[in-house]
């Protein structure tokens, strides 16, 4: 089965993927898909086995004796994009991507879950989910049917930074789809019974998450490293106590707070040849008016670490055949000046299949199917985390080995081949990340949400290519701090607790396997 791949998390150091990671770190999406094929998830150590081999008579494989050289690189630029401002102040950013007939549009309302009150945590996510559930003109079924007739996948969702409404639709139906999107954003009805149903589903989902070791670890880890008053300590979608108190009025009020065209941006990407972007957006979104109440001022403070230093937390899961591990501490915000050095650093440490972590923990020791590290860069300091799942019996050896690798990272500069491999990888895969309209739109959304300069994506490749070993060492000294690492283990306490306490990692807090309150 295609996994929720821990190593994939390591690729999370760029603008476009940041919107996703906020959601991923909450790990909310239940697995609703058909079983897929099994994948390899390789990484590597080195064993030289070049023995040569005899071929049958007449077989000449000498063409394989020489590794081919690369040809001449073909030019690539991130798609050009332009801005226009509608009569109500709403900004439109549009990129023409020839040949991509499935268009993507995202309307970003600024102010996401970060600015919601703790007692209503989850209200912004629920507001997004409730937006397609009926408008002033149509009930929930009529609205969804209208979008389906266009072949339009339409939804709204929240991140820490935004509430966004998005659609993917064939270009021949872009106009009517944009009209529906505007209707959903401007006039959602928030029917009481649909909001209650979505709230109940979120509460049920929290119960489901409790029983899933990966989702349990994703919940406990931020609670462990962040100050409880910091929004990043909780799931994006809220916790049972807060979600239970959300009603139709709270959702409608949240929508009013965030609906402000002057601070909103519509991003459009795809094959826009012959599409009247200016006319269609003015017609459907130019009339969008600010709501009567205005958003509370955007908080500007950063996320805070939990007081009292790093912790070791063991969540008991009796009988578990593996331990889910999360090891990390507070990371950095997206606008950190070390962004490019951190990207290369992470690729070497745990962001690629042949990273130091995967090479040892998987390919040498066979402890896991995969291990990865990531800096989840948000507007404020998101987590730095190493994720893996290891066989229960090797839980403590795996933790010790991870800690050894992390410490060693700061003891000597990265090797030249590691450095060039990581830089070439990040530079080379850059165009692969923008094949679809939706990927281009997400990258543009990242520029808006993180307030990055327009040439950020053009500068990415030269800046990554220029990262030096010294810059990586300097970034590691600032942003990878072995003495501050907290450790979360979701595993079988009967097997894991005693060795964990004996390992000298610090005091161990045991969370018993009980049913969640509320």
């Amino acid at each position, binding site marked *: *089965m*295609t*996994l929720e791949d821990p190593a994939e998390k390591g690729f999370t150091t760029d603008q476009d993927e940041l919107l996703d990671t906020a959601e991923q770190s909450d790990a909310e999406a*239940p697995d609703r*898909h*058909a*079983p897929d*094929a*099994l*994948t*390899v*998830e*390789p990484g*590597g150590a*080195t*064993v*030289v*086995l*070049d023995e*040569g*081999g005899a071929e049958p008579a007449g*077989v*000449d494989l000498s063409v394989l004796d020489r*590794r081919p050289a*690369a*040809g001449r690189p073909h030019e*690539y630029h991130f798609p050009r994009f332009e801005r226009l401002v509608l009569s109500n102040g709403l900004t439109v950013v549009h990129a023409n991507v020839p040949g991509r*007939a*499935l268009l993507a549009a995202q309307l970003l309302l600024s102010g996401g879950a970060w600015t919601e009150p703790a007692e209503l945590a989850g209200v912004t996510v629920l507001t997004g989910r409730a937006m397609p559930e009926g408008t002033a003109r149509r009930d929930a*079924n009529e609205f*969804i*049917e209208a*979008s*389906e*007739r266009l*072949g*339009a*996948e339409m939804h709204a969702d929240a991140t820490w930074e935004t509430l966004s409404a998005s659609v993917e639709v*064939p270009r*021949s139906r872009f106009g009517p789809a944009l009209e529906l999107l505007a209707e959903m954003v401007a006039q959602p009805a928030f029917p009481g019974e649909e909001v209650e149903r979505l709230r109940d589903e979120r509460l049920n989902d929290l119960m*489901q998450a409790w*029983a899933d070791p990966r989702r349990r670890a994703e919940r406990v880890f931020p609670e462990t490293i962040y100050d409880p008053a910091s929004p990043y300590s909780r799931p994006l979608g809220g916790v049972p106590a807060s979600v239970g108190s959300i009603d139709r009025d709270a959702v409608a009020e949240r929508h009013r707070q965030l609906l402000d065209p002057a601070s909103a941006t519509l991003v459009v990407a795809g094959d826009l040849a012959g599409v009247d972007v200016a006319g269609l957006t003015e017609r459907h979104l130019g009339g969008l008016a600010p709501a009567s109440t205005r958003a509370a001022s955007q908080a500007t403070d950063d996320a805070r670490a939990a007081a009292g230093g790093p912790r070791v937390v063991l969540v008991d899961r009796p*009988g578990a*055949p593996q331990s889910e591990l999360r090891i990390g501490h507070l990371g950095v915000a997206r606008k950190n000046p070390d962004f490019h050095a951190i990207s290369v650093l992470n690729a070497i440490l745990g962001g690629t299949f*042949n990273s130091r972590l995967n*090479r040892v923990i998987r*390919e040498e020791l*066979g402890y896991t*199917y995969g291990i990865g590290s990531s800096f989840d860069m948000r507007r404020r300091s998101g987590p730095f985390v190493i994720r893996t799942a*290891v*066989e229960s019996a090797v839980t403590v050896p795996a933790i010790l080995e991870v800690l050894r690798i992390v410490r060693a990272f700061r003891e000597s500069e990265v090797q030249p081949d590691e450095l*060039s*491999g990581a830089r070439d*990888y990040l*530079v*080379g*895969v850059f*165009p*692969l990340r923008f094949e*679809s309209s939706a990927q281009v739109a997400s990258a543009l959304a990242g520029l808006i949400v993180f307030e990055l300069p327009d040439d950020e994506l053009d500068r990415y490749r030269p800046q990554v290519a220029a990262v030096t070993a010294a810059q990586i060492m300097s970034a590691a000294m600032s942003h990878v701090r072995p003495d501050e690492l907290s450790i979360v283990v979701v595993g079988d306490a009967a097997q894991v607790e005693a060795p964990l306490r004996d390992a000298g990692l610090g005091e161990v807090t045991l969370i018993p396997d009980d049913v969640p309150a509320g």
Partner: protein
Amino acid sequence: MPQPPADPAQPSAASDLPTIEFSQRRLPNGLRVIVAPDHLAPVVALNIWYVVGSRHEQLGRTGFAHLFEHFMFQGSRHVRKTEHFSLIQGAGGVNNATTYFDRTNYFETLPSHQLELALWLEADRMATLLDALDQENLDNQREVVKNEKRQSYDNRPYGSFYEKLMAAVFPVEHPYHHTPIGSMEDLNAASVEDVVSFFRTWYAPNNAVLTIVGDVDEEEAHAAVARYFGPIPANPAIRQPAPDKVAGVIGAEMREVVADNVPLTRVHLGFRCPPFGSAQFDALEVASQILAGGRGSRLYRRLVRERRIAQDVTAFGLPLVDEAAFFGGWVTVRPDSDAEACERAFLDELQRLVDEPVTDDELARARALIEASELGALSRVEEVADRLSMYAALFDRPELVNEQLGRYLAVSAQDIQAVARAVFRPDNRVVLTYVPREPDEAVA
């Protein structure tokens, strides 16, 4: 190809869909090669399908096709253990491989000027894999795969459903009776000799399809493939197994209740159905869109939104080609409802597909969503390459890449009713219910 009926309600998006132009050739050693130039971005996707999967495994060696797939990354004559990955990543590319019932595929997507590197890597392991094989690699990858099984199935709520459903829908002597991950016992029993024998039995140019899609010159790409793969000898002994004859239906309803570490009860359903590639399977795909494809679907509307008895619903077919395939779905039961009500409501919706034709509007919406989804899928070179290889390897018809959408659009309400009548029968279903384990029950 049947023409889709006109839909007067909406302009067709089919005009938005590009036609994939490709050429195919066969090397003297039997390797089938497909090249489809696409110059929109300076990237290229390379994909090889070997026609060997878990279906081809011997009794007592389940999980072996997948374990073998891992060995393909442990080196070959000119490539060190795991160097495949470092070379592809260092070239600015991504790669992976997957194992399924009917096939195993290997693929790379990378900057287009690096195509030859990928061809060389694939050719080296096709020709000389066994040079790098040793016990240490076997032991290491066996542990990795066992951890994959623990992570993906054993330590996951409802994690055993796939294995249990396939075992119930297909008889013990049928190759789909077991899933590609196999059993821990069989993985433990695998030996170096098994790996050698598996490679010699199945991995050869005449049992593979190679597809290149992207920013390449068509002639140069064909020439490069011939250069690297042409010298690899064919294996004339390869014979694909005869189709496994199996009855159209299971023959009796099968039920099982599983106590698991889950907070919410979930009812899984499984059916035996006509194979992928048949018109009936296309009709089932459209039916699954109407049943559970999003918030406008029948099951979502009825069970989740209106009656509020379900937390979530799903329905899907598995694209299997050996005479029969699998269709299934599940409903997760809300805490204030019960399994019986949800099962009945799900089955009622299946029966409704049997009793009355779907409406014109439902069919039009399903078609529009399928069109958009195809449009998205075919905008990625990796997906186009995968489909070309798939249609060539499984059906000998790569041109299906341009015909499949038309086949979906040609499915009529009567087609759906006919296949529903054949498949959604009480004597053809498996009902697998996961219930929360009582606190004092022993842990597995």
